[in-house]
């Protein structure tokens, strides 16, 4: 799994400036539960230099819990997306995490193929 943290200055209807983009990878045998999603988000947000920025999360990513409950789960200030600008910011983070994941899978497949080839050669 890949979590992307994007530090963005936003306006009500758009993005003013993208300051920083960081990604963090995680792996697990099971599907993530709420607590592990919280941990992933907090770890990814830690990689961003600005520690005072509010974390904006999509409600669907948090199993559609309500905002009051959400706030109790995090050490930092968090909120769900509201304005068009916030939605656009989340869209960027989603694009980043998805493309990073695809890249990693591609790379991993390349490595796997190489390993298999080497194994075959060794057998020969």
């Amino acid at each position, binding site marked *: 799994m890949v979590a992307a943290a994007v530090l963005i200055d*936003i*306006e009500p*209807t758009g993005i003013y400036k993208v300051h920083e983009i960081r990604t963090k990878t995680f792996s697990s045998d099971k599907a993530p539960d709420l607590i592990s999603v919280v941990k992933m988000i907090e770890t990814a947000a830690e990689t961003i230099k600005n520690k005072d920025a509010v974390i904006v999360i999509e409600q669907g990513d948090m199993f559609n819990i309500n905002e*009051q409950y959400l706030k109790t789960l995090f050490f930092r200030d968090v909120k769900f997306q*509201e304005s068009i*600008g916030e939605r656009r910011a989340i869209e960027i983070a989603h694009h980043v995490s998805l493309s990073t994941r695809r890249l990693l899978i591609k790379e991993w497949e390349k490595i796997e193929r190489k390993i298999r080839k080497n194994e075959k050669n060794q057998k020969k």
Partner: protein
Amino acid sequence: MVDNNNFSDRKKVGLVIRFDPTSENEKNESKLDEFKDLAKAAGYIISFTIEQTKYPDSRYNIGYGKAKELAEIAFYEQVDEIIFYDSLSTSQVYNLSKVCFEAGSNARIIDRFHLILDIFDTRATTHRSKLQVELARLTYELPGAKMRISLSKKEEKAGFGGLGDYEDSYEYDLKRRISRIKNELKKADIEEESRRAYRRKKGFQLVSLAGYTNAGKSTLFNLLVDEENEVEDMLFTTLIPKTRLLKIDNHKVLITDTVGFIEDLPHFMVDAFKSTLDGIYYSDLILLVVDFSEPVETIYNKLKVSHEILWEQSASDIITVLNKSDSVSVRERQYKLKKLDYLIANPIFISAKEEIGIEDLKKMIISQLPEQRTIVVRLPNNQYGASALSEFYETGVVEEVIYGDFITFDFTAPEYILEKLKGTVFKTYENSGMKIMSEYHIGNSKLNNL
């Protein structure tokens, strides 16, 4: 149109609303107020309102005890309809109707979406809007069609559990009607799309009035275009979009009044009215009208819903028109603006009713619209020149036409229209002596002589 003064024709209804135990009180109150306004907008007389704080019950939506209480009140009050805020499943409607029937009441059980559809039904006057309402109703009925038939034929048919095999011709019939309406609407959409493209080609800039229902969009529209369209303190007064020409300085703007947004509008309904909302999505500029006299929490909720709906498809610029601000003190204005600054883009205070701030709004519209450019054009004074001139008249603003050896005039249009003209009209008439003499941007005193 619903005649609210005719009491004998109006239905008596009871409203039932269920709140989640974790929900906020203020939000619940505004939900209830909006629910009452909706019932009033449909022309109903509200006999009673029942509230319950409980997680949803799978059989009755509200608790069984409350459902029994509701049935007794419905019988005592002799209501025609009981309206639930939540969406009800077919089996919930069946169970509730059964409880009511046992108590002696024949009230019809419906939910908020049926209520909205009823309002739309009474207001729909054009063929297209009638089709849209019909489509929304059928789409809403479809998933429960099988169950409804099963339940209604429960006594007649044999089989395990008494349900027997279900009648599916009703469902097929619904599906057939849905696809027929969709086809008809598709044709209407193509017409609308070509009309929009035609308007753009002719150099009009498209501005839409959007916003939560009852924000004062129609009042502002009337004021801007100097018309007397229907305005009422009621939800969904406007259902059919209206487009009128608005001339601000040299800009030819087409302004469209649209249907208002509402919270928790299900997707099938948004889809049914998609072609109406397309008018908003494809405009150059959106005027998001907000009733600024309401409490901060209410404004926040309405802005959130508006942003959510606009986010789905629109990429246009937004001006947030803070209407009814004459009744808000300067201090309160600043407080509200500070609280909601992350949701308010390009704010402007106006009062459509008192006609305050309209000139500033017009200036703001112009500043946000794509830039217009004026060029001075010289055409030969012959038949070619005359036909080229008529094309200029169609695509932009033609001013100060001087007829002499040549036809000389000022031509103003958006940048992209000029570029397009240079590729078409100018090339066609190039050999006949057509020439751009000078060009300048509006508001820029520098003239570029060519």
